[in-house]
């Protein structure tokens, strides 16, 4: 469309200008008016040439319609004005005056132009519609892509975040949680469906519920607080929480987003700081101040009692002065390590509580070695020489031991006692140790240990039943055998006490009854043996056993022991205070001879003899020993006992004395009319094998 010299065909030029003027304001063509004129002039040429051509064809004019559309001569009135201008000009221009059948040709030409124009417009509109719809589709896909990208970005952040993120429903149910969240909680990662609130420390739940509500109700946009989460292993994790709200498309609250930052490490750092304040910098052991609080804690919560060792390294000042402080420090560190190693398996605190003083508190367990074993281990460990400049240096220590002090001792008393004992030990020389109170402590220790292992012993058959002969005082014949528990060196009384303490009383009682009943029943089947009735004495709890009657009947049924061959004595207190009295009644109703043990003879006890079908009473062992300890046979107590026996007899009840230890005692009990007795004087508890020896008829 380069500008050119106006051609000589000025009429065509004029026509192009008229055409331009006619259509210029009907549409926007991005050209100057001159350019438009020139563009249209080309089209005028096509039309004028066509009209003059022989033979005539309107076909070339079709291109004019195409070119008008492609140059955007497409306004609403553009075609109409084009037809007006061209129609008038073609019909009346002098240049075309000689054309044959002009009007016919003009109509044909304008028709062809209009037809092609219309077709081109249609196609153009289709194209453009297609383009814009494609763009619409792209745009929508773009939005979706953006959405997907955004979602992908979210998931990237969600997935790779070091912050734990959980999205929960408004009820706290986890809808989605990321790996970091799972890691903080230490679980298998699948929190979905769980309640997030349940993962918080119970103490924090109430406050947190309120905070979540505040966010949900729009009181606050978000909250940021520090709380404890509970890991899957039950350990707490300190976290910072940031909680905010997600709304749905309608702006209604839909989800909570909980972001969790694990700040346990900060707490660890805090702990480290605490560690520095509470520990000896040289050895890393607790310092004195820390030890005092730890000792207090261990002492107050210990179940089996603590043992406190207070150690002082012998002649350590000589080492420090002779070998130098560096060596001294090295030995102190080593001592700390060795002491820690000695007690490694125990629940202990090892502390350095002075320059060359150490302390160990052991919270005793069933398996904790005894004090002497522990002392040996400490001494052995310290005796191992450390080489300093090729010279072996071995340390020794003096040790004061406070074993199982009473729970009500204060920490101050504990430390003072241990320290005092240490000084007593040091006074004896090097490498010495002393217990604070050996008798009391060792007794207590053994007792507790035995009680703890009783269940196992019962199961393993370590507990046995012995039989102590019951002797008629009148003729010294054996009239019965009393079943007695024995467990190692522990006798019947201790076994019953242990059983009562450990809650094993009922099974032990029933077991004893059953076991002894079986033995006696078996002996009865042996024609060689002349057996005597079995006496079974029960402890307080056993006497109240609601299943006692059932157990007795089962024993009789299953062993075949006749009712006449069994005497059961119930604890007097248990019968007095309820529970036991029913048992006495029902046993007696079943034909079993029933007595009372641990009988003291008080008014209330005597009343029982009139109320219940009692056949015998057994005088409490403590009362028997008290009488034995009183040499004056005419004492108040002796007279009272004599009177008691007489009173009991009047009720038709026999009297048995236990724990009779001498001929004198036996004679006295016989003299006051007691019916039978048992005790070391007559025979100790015998094993099953031993007791059968007594029964041989020959």
């Amino acid at each position, binding site marked *: 469309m380069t500008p050119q010299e106006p051609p000589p065909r000025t009429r065509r030029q004029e026509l192009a200008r008229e055409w331009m003027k006619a259509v210029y304001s009907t549409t926007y063509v991005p050209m100057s008016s001159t350019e438009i004129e020139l563009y249209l002039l080309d089209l005028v040429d096509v039309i004028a040439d066509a009209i003059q051509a022989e033979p005539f064809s309107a076909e070339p004019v079709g291109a004019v319609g195409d070119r008008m559309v492609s140059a955007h001569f497409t306004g609403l009135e553009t075609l109409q004005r084009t037809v007006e201008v061209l129609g008038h000009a073609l019909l009346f221009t002098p240049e075309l005056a000689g054309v044959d059948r002009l009007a016919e040709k003009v109509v044909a030409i304008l028709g062809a132009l209009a037809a092609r124009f219309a077709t081109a417009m249609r196609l153009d509109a289709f194209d453009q*519609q297609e383009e814009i719809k494609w763009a619409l589709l792209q745009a*929508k896909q773009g939005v979706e892509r953006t*959405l997907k990208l955004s979602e992908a970005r979210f998931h990237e952040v969600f997935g790779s975040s070091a912050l734990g993120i959980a999205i929960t429903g408004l009820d706290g149910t986890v809808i989605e949680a990321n790996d970091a969240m799972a890691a903080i909680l230490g679980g298998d990662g699948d929190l979905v469906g769980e309640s997030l609130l349940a993962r918080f420390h119970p103490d924090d739940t109430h406050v947190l519920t309120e905070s979540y509500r505040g966010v949900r109700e729009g009181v606050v946009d978000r909250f940021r607080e520090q709380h404890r989460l509970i890991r899957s292993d039950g350990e707490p994790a300190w976290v910072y929480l940031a909680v905010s709200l*997600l*709304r749905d498309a309608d702006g209604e609250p839909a989800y909570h987003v909980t972001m969790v930052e694990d700040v346990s490490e900060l707490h660890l750092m805090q702990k480290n700081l605490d560690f520095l304040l509470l520990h000896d910098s040289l050895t890393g052991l607790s310092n004195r101040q820390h030890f005092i609080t730890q000792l207090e804690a261990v002492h107050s919560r210990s179940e089996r009692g603590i043992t406190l060792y207070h150690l002082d390294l012998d002649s350590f000042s000589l080492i420090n002065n002779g070998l130098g402080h560096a060596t001294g420090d090295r030995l102190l560190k080593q001592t700390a390590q060795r002491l820690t190693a000695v007690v490694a398996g125990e629940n202990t605190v090892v502390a350095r509580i002075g320059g060359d003083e150490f302390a160990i508190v052991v919270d005793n367990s069933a398996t904790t070695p005894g004090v002497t074993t522990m002392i040996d281990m400490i001494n052995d460990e310290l005796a191992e020489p450390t080489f300093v400049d090729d010279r072996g240096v071995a340390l020794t220590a003096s040790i004061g031991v406070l074993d199982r002090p009473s729970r009500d001792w204060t920490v101050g008393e504990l430390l003072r006692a241990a320290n005092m004992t240490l000084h007593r030990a040091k006074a004896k020389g090097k490498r010495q140790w002393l217990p604070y109170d050996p008798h009391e402590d060792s007794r207590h220790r053994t007792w507790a240990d035995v009680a703890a292992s009783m269940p196992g012993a019962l199961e393993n058959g370590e507990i046995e039943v012995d039989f102590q002969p019951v002797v008629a005082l009148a003729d010294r014949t054996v009239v019965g055998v009393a079943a007695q528990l024995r467990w190692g060196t522990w006798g019947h009384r201790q076994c019953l006490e242990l059983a009562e303490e450990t809650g094993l009383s009922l099974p032990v009682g029933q077991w004893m009854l059953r076991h002894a009943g079986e033995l006696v029943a078996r002996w009865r089947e042996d024609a060689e043996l002349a057996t005597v009735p079995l006496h079974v004495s029960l402890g307080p709890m056993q006497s109240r056993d609601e299943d006692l009657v059932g157990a007795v009947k089962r024993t009789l049924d299953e062993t075949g022991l006749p009712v006449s061959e069994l005497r059961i004595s119930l604890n007097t207190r248990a019968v007095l205070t309820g529970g036991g009295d029913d048992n006495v009644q029902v046993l007696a109703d079943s034909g079993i001879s029933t007595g009372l043990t641990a009988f003291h003879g008080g008014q209330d006890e005597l009343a029982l003899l009139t109320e219940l079908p009692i056949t015998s009473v057994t005088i409490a062992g403590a009362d028997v020993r008290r009488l034995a300890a009183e040499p004056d046979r005419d004492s108040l107590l002796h007279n009272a006992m004599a009177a008691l026996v007489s009173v009991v007899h009047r009720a038709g009840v026999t009297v048995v004395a236990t724990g009779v230890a001498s001929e004198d005692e036996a004679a006295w009990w016989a003299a006051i009319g007691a019916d039978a007795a048992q005790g070391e004087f007559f025979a100790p508890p015998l094993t099953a094998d031993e007791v059968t020896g007594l029964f041989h008829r020959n």
Partner: protein
Amino acid sequence: MELANWVPAGSDTGLPSAARLYDYLLGGGHNFAADRALAEELLVVEPNARAIARHNRSFLRRAVLYMIDQGVQQFLDLGSGIPTVGNVHEVARRAAPETRVVYVDFEDIAVAHSRRILAADPLAAIVQEDLTEPTAVLDAASRTGLLDLAEPVGLLAVSVLHFVSSTADAAGALGVYRDAVASGSHLALSHATADLQPVEMAGIVEVMKRSANPVFPRSHAEVHGFFLGFDVVDPGVVPVPRWRPERAADDDPASAGLFAGVGHKG
């Protein structure tokens, strides 16, 4: 879970848009029935709307050619809309084939269409940004490699700022563009006004409220104020057909609807 609510909804493709309406008024086919329906309503309140569109488009062409005459070889067309007849790069290339053009629009369909039209064109590109965030626009435009801020830029804000509400700081945005471009740069601007035909413009404002692009007409003084920091070239800020017309006007300038002008940064 369903995370669809996490992102802002995409541009609403359902509402009529000013760009497609403009295309229709220019006789284009890049529009939807909703656009055409609204355009017909517009023609009721402003029968001259087609002429206004044509004059505005014609002003764009003349302004581009004027700037090329002044030595501008790159254009930043803010709010370029739907590519339609007489796009800047087409007009400019007929005068200067090496001219580079960066189009800026925010609307998804306009951007998608522009991208397609320009896909094979190494000297023209479209960036999808909001023209009221000039820093982002300039960054994105520079990233195309087509815009060199050290050289004069032809800034085009043709029939677009009247879609920027009075609460958004159109003048402030223009100031950022002005400060960013080299001296020798030009600003061409056309803007709807109620000064010339208050009744018709009020009708246009009402009709366009139902489009995605409500109109905020501004006074002559306000439009002139957009040229702060530019020297407005002759004939100044005038009704759009009166800006350097190429032939004797056959239209009443009072019905132009828009003021137009070109400024030069010294």
